[in-house]
């Protein structure tokens, strides 16, 4: 009987304990994530959020965006086995191409974080967050959002402008695609704000600064064919003594990176890796060799009259060449190169040439050529050919200066030369398709680019 009572008591106890504490027991919280209600509430969460936005940009620029900027053009080609690279190489990009979809996703993800910072930082009241720091974070958010919309615009055309953080999925309904001009106008707006808010120092190259904003503005004006402003902003950056062309071309892509050449690069570390080199290196060196320089670029880089020192971008294996811009094979710490001072010279060269300032333009062009020990360009003696030939020279210089960075494809599309150079006469294919899933899940608001 003793046991009998004991058992009943135990059973009763466990039942009552259980019912009283059920709801409490059923509430569990993670240890690796925070509730969205407390995502940006004080200095440390505000700082973490803007860092999260940079991390989002790393996702865009580590693999995806440089691939989109090169593979569809003529300087690199598909070398097996991943179909998404073949599709880009062949300019037959289906709506579910992994690379375009991943870049699109990552860009909007970055935008959403930037939107959260912009919307919430004003509500933070924390003495630890000084006005200067608050402005810097807000300025960075505007810059990152502007950059992301710029990259969306030049890849996909005018896109849907999300300017508020997503808090529920019904609230985002009704936003239609803007035109490319409207998209670039939003970029301009964000960059103005960023320029106003951001500081400038003498050393930072991997976070947004006033000069970084100006450099991107220069590029934006180039895309908008606002030559005078493009020149103006390029000059502002070039005149900043923080930046100068490195003497030896190959030194900007050698560790420890962050050279004076760099206006803006994203830094990676051994615990925050960039494995892009894997796609460029042959398997015998540990890579997968999905991306390979074309014969065209190999020939040009090896030609002392064209490539000069830039032949350091490729290395030979047997009869073939592989690209070594991304080369940190033991540590996977290659930066993502977003803006180099060399680009500002070539932007200014092009802007000046377009404005008829040919001699000044050639001077900028030669800065780049001479740095790589390539002979100076001399303007055509025939006045009627001079501008056209100079612009072509600048285009070719861009190709050899940035063959493995996100430039060539966007340049050829921007100058409407993709048909002539690549034989891609169907201009529909000058824009990437919007992701298949967006067409499905956003039926009311989104329209696919024509031709897809």
């Amino acid at each position, binding site marked *: 009987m003793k046991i009998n009572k004991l058992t009943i008591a135990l*059973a009763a106890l466990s039942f009552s304990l*259980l019912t009283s504490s059920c709801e409490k027991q059923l509430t569990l919280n993670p240890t*690796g994530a925070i509730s969205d209600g407390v995502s940006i509430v004080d200095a440390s969460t505000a700082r973490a959020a803007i860092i999260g936005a940079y991390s989002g940009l790393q996702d865009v620029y580590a693999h995806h965006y440089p691939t989109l900027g090169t593979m569809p053009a003529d300087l690199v080609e598909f070398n*097996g086995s991943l179909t998404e690279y073949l599709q880009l190489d062949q300019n*037959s990009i289906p709506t579910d191409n992994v690379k375009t979809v991943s870049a699109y996703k990552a860009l909007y993800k970055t935008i959403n974080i930037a939107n959260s910072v912009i919307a919430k930082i004003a509500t933070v009241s924390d003495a630890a967050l000084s006005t200067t720091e608050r402005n810097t974070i807000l300025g960075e958010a505007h810059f990152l959002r502007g950059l992301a919309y710029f990259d969306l615009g030049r890849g996909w055309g005018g896109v849907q402008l999300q300017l508020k953080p997503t808090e529920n999925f019904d609230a985002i309904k009704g936003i239609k695609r803007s035109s490319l001009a409207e998209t670039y106008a939003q970029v301009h707006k964000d960059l103005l704000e960023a320029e106003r808010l951001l500081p400038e120092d003498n050393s930072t190259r991997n976070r947004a600064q006033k000069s970084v904003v100006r450099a991107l503005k220069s590029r934006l004006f180039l895309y908008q064919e606002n030559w005078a402003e493009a020149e103006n902003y390029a000059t502002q950056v070039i005149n900043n003594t923080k930046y100068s062309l490195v003497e030896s071309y190959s030194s900007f892509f050698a560790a420890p990176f962050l050279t004076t050449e760099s206006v803006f690069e994203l830094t990676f570390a051994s615990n925050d890796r960039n494995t892009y080199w894997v796609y460029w290196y042959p398997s015998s060196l540990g890579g997968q060799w999905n991306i390979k320089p074309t014969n065209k670029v190999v020939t040009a880089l090896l030609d002392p009259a064209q490539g000069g020192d830039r032949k350091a971008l490729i290395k030979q294996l047997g009869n073939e060449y592989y690209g070594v811009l991304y080369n940190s094979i033991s540590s996977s710490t290659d930066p993502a190169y977003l803006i180099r001072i060399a680009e500002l010279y070539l932007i200014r060269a092009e802007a000046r040439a377009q404005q008829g300032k040919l001699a000044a333009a050639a001077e900028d062009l030669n800065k780049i050529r001479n740095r790589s020990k390539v002979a100076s360009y001399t303007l055509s003696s025939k006045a009627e050919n001079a501008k056209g030939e100079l612009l072509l020279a600048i285009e070719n210089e861009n190709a050899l200066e940035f063959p493995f960075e996100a430039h060539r494809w966007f340049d050829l599309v921007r100058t409407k030369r993709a048909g002539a150079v690549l034989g891609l006469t169907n201009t529909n294919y000058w824009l990437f398709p919007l992701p298949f899933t967006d067409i499905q899940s956003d039926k009311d608001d989104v329209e696919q680019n024509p031709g897809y």
Partner: protein
Amino acid sequence: MFNTLKKGLFIGALTFLSQQTYAQQIQNLLGSVKNDKGEHVSHVTLRLKNAKGSTSTDAKGQFKLPAVKSDVLIVTAVGYEVQEIPLTNVTSLTITLVPSNARLEEVVLTGYSTQKRKHIVGAISSIKAEEIASTPVTGVNQMLQGRVAGVQVSANNGTPGAGINFRIRGSNSINASNEPLYVIDGVFVDNRENISTSIGGQAQSNPLSDINPSDIEDIQVLKDANATAIYGSLGANGVVLITTKRGKLGESSKINFNTTQGWANAYKKFDLLDGPTQDLLSNESKYNTAVDAALAAGKDPATVAQIAPNPAYQNTYDRIDYLFRTARNKSYDGSIIGGGEKTSYFVSFGYTDQQSIVKPSGFSRYSGRINLDNKVTDKLKVGTTVSIARTYRNISSNDNNAKGVINSAIFTRTYLPVFNEDGSYAAWGSFDNSNALIDHLNNNAIGFRVIANGYAEYSFLPELKLRSSWSIDNNTMSEKNYTNTYITAGKATNGAAAAYENQGQTLLNEQVLTYVKSFGESRKHAINALVGNTINYSLNQLTAATGTGFATNNLKDISVAAITTGSSSRAEARLISFFGKTTYTYNNKYTADLSLRADGSSKFGANRKWGYFPSAGVTWRAAEEDFIKDLNFFSNLTLRSSIGLSGNQNGIGNYAALGLWSSGANYLGLAGTQPSQLANPDLTWETTRQVNAGIDIGILKNKISLTADYYNKYTYDLLLDVPVPNRSGFETFLQNYGAVRNSGFELGINTVNFDRNDFRWTTNFNISWNKNKIEKLASDITLGASGRNTSILREGYSINSFYLYKQLYVDPQTGNAVYDDVNGDGKITTADRQIVGKALPDFSGGLTNNFSYKNFDFNFFIFFTKGNSVLNMQDFFMVHGGTQASIGFLPRQLDRWQKPGDVTDIPRMTTFRDDPTANNSSANNYVGNVASLSSRYLQDASFIRLKNVSFGYNLPSATAEKIGFKKVRAYVQLSNVFTITNYNGLDPEVSATGGNQNTAGYDWATTPQPRTFQLGVQVTL
């Protein structure tokens, strides 16, 4: 009185009993019981029909029972027909048992209780482990393939211990789990994948491989809502109840020893073209491409020069031979079973070691078990079940991984040498050197698993019992991987190491109060009722570290690496449940059954944590009705039907309902956060409503018995990752949306075809049809094949459908592929992709024939499946028309169109970039919009396989006893003997990307099922 009697029996005081009835001229009845093979049978219950008295046979089959002559003796034994023997003028007798086929009297374990099979309302299939235990696979769930109607089992590949796909009545869910609940001796075991090393896209392991199949007594598969509803939110995908062996009180101890020794090989190996032919095809593609370019440029194609064979590419280097091996399997099992007056026990150990036929993978397991039951008092019983397993896996990557072993062996062009001139390993293109991987891969996972349970059962009254049970499933997996500098992945970094420590813990406490009683006139009314509660806590934690940069290949610990990283994570979940069930049977004819369970889960939204899962069912044993009896035809005729709800919460994140910013989005060494999911406070149970109607028929004294069931399962409020516009910054939002239906019919037939003169022939046949259909979905969801999106989930179609361009034919004049232009716009674009097949079969089943003659037995087992397709990724990559510069060719490429008039399904080889939307143009032969995502690589993978043939011999018991054994058996067994299929890959039973349940049916450089020859010996002391 009854209590006293029982007590008396248990202490063996038969004299006490006989004194009571002495007055009625009692005599001592002596006897023995044998089975149909002449062996003595213990534990046979002998009961008097009129007087109160019973006993059971001892270890030698002997019994003694005081009885009056006018009485009738009722003989019952599990697995045998009940016999009634009048005792007129009998003082001693020898009883021969007749095996029963219908197993009607058998007691079946159902959710939280046991019931007689004849009263069971639900659809439950039972399997005796001994029927399948010698199958040379590691997991008991895999052994059920083809054995149980309504259960579809397919292996992902042929590597021992690797993942399998196990579905009871089809796939209910898209994003939540489709795995059944496995309950081993009352412990809800964790069936989550716990290997972190990626092996290329498929499920890395079958967690049930941690259980030694030799320890198992029987398996019940609960299929319908009535059987599973008591498991509430855990039951929607069906429940597999596994009972391990336990000793019985008073059973003399038996020592068993078994061993098997096996040899396995591949019955089909990869067939690659030789070097010169690969060079020739490559050149042909380049030439054709140049011709196309010339034509497009308006030039004369005749100016294009033929490409001469490359003299350096005229050799052939074989990699396949080194890839495969004759794999050894061995297993040793020993056990002791028995019981004393108060304690019964089963103690076992086991060791099994199985190599993969593709080097270097392998699996081994040490296991031990102690099952103890102890009668503390007449009212209190306590017991423990402890099982320990230590597994070792040599893991190598295959499937969707360019650096996989098989990939590196088959994709590399055969004219490229295996070794460099200096003797070092040569790696080509995107691939590694398969020999280097085989020689140097050093990935191993050591699992240690303890599944333990302790219970106490107290009988307040004979009919009222309380059982309290406490369980733990502690599953740790410790992985150490080292990639040295001979392997390309380790070359760049001077060695790379990774380590993972994964711990999964499930703690379970349950109380069940059961009431079982018959009452009324002739005990016409029978009630079996229970109430109970459980608390289930699960913990999952992972610690991971990586290191790169080692001084030499001899140093492998991460602690000595130049660069190291580490991480850890933890997730918890809790489930609290209350349940009740009552079964009422009237007159052994009519049974009604009702159950209800309430579950509260920590995973769900604040508003919707609790779910309620009721079920109801009825059974009518028509064979007990006089009008059926009068037909004198049916030995069994039972009609069953049930309806109920069950739920599903597995497979979603533990914190899926919360709005979260995740951490770890770091930059410049600073900690960063990013939004990762929006809150869904309404997130709740995915619910499956199932109706079942079944019939059990036995005729000719159950020589022919048949079970048929129809079911219709409708799963709604799917836990679905609904795609949202990417512009939101999110990809998907987990919500209760969508519905899936599985409906089907299953049939099992068991027959005794011949049973005379020591010759017995029985046949078991089962077949299951299941139709899976997505009834409601927000929008199409495409996925699979590394972003090629070759699988699709679409409303109105089956889960695991393939989404490709349908190639209609290759134009015999142009040699170009012509595709189905679905929207008729004259172009081939994404809009022209369509569903061209599915990975799920229309039906599958198994046929077993058992023959025994005297001491010999022979059986064979055939498994078949029909209507499923496999996307052959070897063909996709290796019949590439020249697009893949570093990948070789399969012989199928030789079928390519070459000249006008050729009729073939393989188009002309060219990689010329033309208008990617053009149909019947070279653009889409291998590139263009189609990019080879063509139905020409999708194949029918229906097959019939002679899965098992075995031949055994039992030493006659007299001979065995002479040499000191109770039983000696030897057998030989052949597995996967042959396969009839139209599929052209190595093995139609494959799922290379099965790690995601929505991308089944890919063959991608995958290890085929081995053909195994096995010798076995079993002895009992």
